[in-house]
């Protein structure tokens, strides 16, 4: 049964189900309905007229979606965990550093109090802090829908700006980040001001000592350089080769920068930075991330 709290708020229909099944039912019953988590994207887009919001399905009353749990397969972050909650509660485990790096520069304190990790991901902005981060960390997304629960790798989730594989009636409910001993990660971004800003471009890097025999398991993901978070396998391969220090690393970083300059083609129309700037920044942010991960690997 769909329980509803009806409120005459601008004649908007507002549902506040207490189970996922009810939420799905509401989503299916009202094909133009929007999911509400923190609302930091939804309300802004409603006000600006970018979207029409007539029906809202609020997820906040559903229990269990705001939990962080450490499971054998990794750390499970509920979709409704707010950024500030993540900063406070997420265990400081090797490999998870990027989650906190991203949280610290996300919006401003007030926004971090409302904004949820799941909302940030499901909104699928190409520059979203947690899009690049989850892809680099090789997270798995858990999705609840009419036919039950299924999981997808983070990388397969995003399909374009503001678009994901989520179908009508499906809800992103949790992200599971694998835990690998001896790994480290970092998230870095460029912004226009130090205070509240969006990422002009971002870079998340994950390195594991245990993957793939002699080399390193490296995953790199850039945000706001393409229509969706962009992994560049060629760079990951280069960074997996040889020792992670001195001349070798320097040589590899230069190679990566060269590849980024050649392969990236950020859109010309961005008002946050021109394509040349973004390409240069991509290389420099990667270098910065490598430095941070290097320190964290010890």
């Amino acid at each position, binding site marked *: 049964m769909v329980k509803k709290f009806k409120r005459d708020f601008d004649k908007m229909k507002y549902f506040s189900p207490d189970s996922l099944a009810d939420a799905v039912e509401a989503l299916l019953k009202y094909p133009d309905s929007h999911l509400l988590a923190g609302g930091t994207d939804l309300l802004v887009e409603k006000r600006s007229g970018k979207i029409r919001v007539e029906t809202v399905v609020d997820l906040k009353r559903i229990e269990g979606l705001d939990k962080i749990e450490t499971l054998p397969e990794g750390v499970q972050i509920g979709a409704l965990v707010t950024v500030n909650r993540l900063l406070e509660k997420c265990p400081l485990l090797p490999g998870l550093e990027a989650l906190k790096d991203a949280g610290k520069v996300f919006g401003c304190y007030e926004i971090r109090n409302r904004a949820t990790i799941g909302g940030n991901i499901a909104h699928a902005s190409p520059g979203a802090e947690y899009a690049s981060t989850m892809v680099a960390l090789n997270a798995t997304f858990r999705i609840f829908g009419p036919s039950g629960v299924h999981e997808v790798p983070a990388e397969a989730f995003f399909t374009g700006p503001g678009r994901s594989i989520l179908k009508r009636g499906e809800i992103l409910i949790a992200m599971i980040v694998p835990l690998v001993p001896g790994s480290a990660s970092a998230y870095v971004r460029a912004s226009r001001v130090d*205070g509240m800003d969006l990422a002009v471009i971002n870079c998340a890097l994950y390195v594991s000592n245990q993957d793939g025999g002699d080399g390193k398991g490296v995953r790199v993901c850039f945000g706001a350089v393409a229509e969706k978070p962009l992994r560049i396998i060629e760079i990951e391969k280069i960074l997996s080769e040889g020792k992670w220090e001195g001349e070798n690393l320097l040589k590899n970083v230069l190679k990566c*920068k060269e590849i980024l*300059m*050649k392969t990236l083609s950020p859109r010309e129309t961005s*008002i946050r930075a021109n394509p040349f700037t973004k390409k*240069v920044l991509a290389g*420099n*942010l990667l270098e910065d991330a490598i430095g941070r991960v290097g320190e964290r690997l010890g």
Partner: protein
Amino acid sequence: MKKESQIRTEVGYKYIGQSIPRVDAVEKVTGEAEFIADLYFPDVLHIKLVRSKVPHARIKKIYLDDALRVEGVRGIITGEKAGFLVGICIHDQPPIAREKVRFVGEPVAAVVAENLKAAKKACDLVRVEYGELKAVFDPLEALREDAPRLHEGLGHYFHLPSFNPVPGSNIFHHYHLEKGNVEAGFKRSSFVLERSYSFPHISHAQLEPHGAIARWSSGGELHIYTSSQAPHIVSELLSRIFSIPQSKIRVSVPFVGGGFGGKSDFTLEPLVSYVARFFPGKWVRLILDREEMFFGSLIGRGCRSVMKMGASRDGKILAAEVKMYFGGGAYGDCVINIVTGGGHNSTGPYEIENVVVDSYGVYTNNPPVGAYRGYGHPEAHWMTERHIEVMAEALGISSLEFRLKNILRPGSENNLGQIIREENGDLESCVRIAAREIGFEEDVSGYTEKKKVFGVPSVKIAKDVSALEILPQKRFVAGRGIAALMKSPVISTSAGSSAIIRANADGSFELQVSAIDIGQGSMTVLTQIAAETLDVPVDKIRLFKGADTSLTPYEWQTVASSTTWKAGNAVRRAALQIIDSFKEIASVVLDVPKEGLSIRDGCVWYGNESIPYSRLALGYVFPDGKTIHGPVIGWGSVVPEGMTYPDPKTGRGELAAEWTFGCQAAEVEVDVYTGRIRVKKFVTVIDAGKIINPVLAKGQVEGAVVQGMGATLNEVLIYSKEGIIRNASLTDYKIPTAQDIPEKLVTIFLENPQPDSPYGVRPIAEHGIVSVAPAIANAVKDATGVDFYDLPLNPDRVIEALYGKKV
């Protein structure tokens, strides 16, 4: 309040020079202060504007039928019925577009409805058929022969005598200044350098959006509430355009949440009054959205300039030739005086024997430009203070030395032909102190590679090195820069101020002015001046919080950093008149000559005998009940005396009533990886004359510095090819936040008093913004070796300069 009566500074002031808390602090902190959007009226009608989506077009037809059918819509007003043009110095703007639109965002129709939702809905249903015309967005392009003309009627527009529109062109004002013989000066020069500079359009981004609420009474009187810096200008303007006496117009200004020049002259008032006239007896309300603030009112700056300067081998500037092109947007009235003021002060605080300035106000298909803190001076100093830096490097002398060789000193003749006097302030000390504070005169290690005199780059990333080869040794490079400044208030020759003080029965006072507290603290400072002059505690003065042309006396407008100086003088004169009346009464009561009386601590004294103000305020009542004099009122009135229009041929004359000199210096850190510049330390030294309230004065300077930093590093209105502002929201128009403020903000005031002003004050509110951009850019040059000539210094510019646009 501390025990004020005991505190006297060395010059004997009790309240002047004290950082008393703002008199409006409690209302503002608690939210009780009422701003325009807080005012509610019964049955108010709401305006929502249909705005042009094209930059330049003839309006062929406006289809209103669908929109008029929306429930709740009471009418839609277009510009056709307005038989007047708006303006003060030049009348060139219809209240709502008529025949033509000239910028994206220009109001084409005003939907009036019972609620905003209906108004919005109807707006979407208004269809406008345009005959599109070629548009032009750059002032230099707008000057070309084949450029589209924005105002075919320019030759017929009314304008005041001191302005020179060029009919048949897009030039709505050309200001020309000549001093000495420039050609001869360049011939004598051993080095001549010419360069172009640009300062883009930016937004004031006031915290409070513009708004106005108006009602025409059935008897034909107009009452308008507005968020304005200029109620009396608005009153005069409305009187002219509606052909009714000012005595039938009442302009009320509640609390104002930030102006920065963007609420000076006029903004929404003509439009709202024009629309309200169709709905007599009804309050009609228009409050802009945050997004509309970027194109729906005034924008700022937008100047391209060229400077040619010649100097002798030993560093004496011999000649300067300046061209400034202000892209004034679609209408010129609110920018026209910037063309003159920015023009005559364009060569900065230097004595140059031979000068030619040509400053043009040029129509472009952008939103109209208006005053923005600094009023042409930041644009001019961006050019001159960068030029000085580049010249010094080429001459092989330190730019500090170069500046000191050429600055205006007592006895120097400025561009206008005025001789700088001792009392105008001590620029040389400002420059020396700023240089010392930023560390040019001492060894500061830790930053630059080599501890050389400033101006020499410490780290140079050659432009010809490909980005791929760059792996900078250092991610952060630091540098220091300096830039001097001067500003005079650019005001009308008859820019009057007045004040009224009334004595209450208990010896407290009511003070009325029409100077607007736009956040700068004028309520507090004017209260302090009254308290000091009357010698009563500040809580015995109540300043009327707001302005109302039917209640508060004339103030030309709250602009040009002139309130403390000008309105302050009026307040002081009003207070002196009160004292004079008190003494007159007391002399009768005590039967002593008036001249032998003095005032102290709220009493009139003769020797040891005293009469408290409370017994004089409403006239003196003798023991038998007989009363003399009656209620005491004082008034004060001032104009900036001796100002003249510019000479038509040379552009010179008494155009500046005052001068304030200063110097700014920056220490920056450039992030070579991200192209971000961070200001680590910023120093401002101003010869401010007497400081009335140190905390407020410092706040003014710090606010100006941070605002200037925003324009230097980030702020720019980004236009699409079709003239649409692409970043019309705070998401992408980034102003500095608390996190972006420099770690060290140093403000130093010299207090050489100004003789003709109340207690020796000098204007300071804008000055902190004037040379922020060149000080930072000069520091960036020191850090990276790169010279920048265009603003803002955002990552796109820095990355391109450092890495070269290769690959």
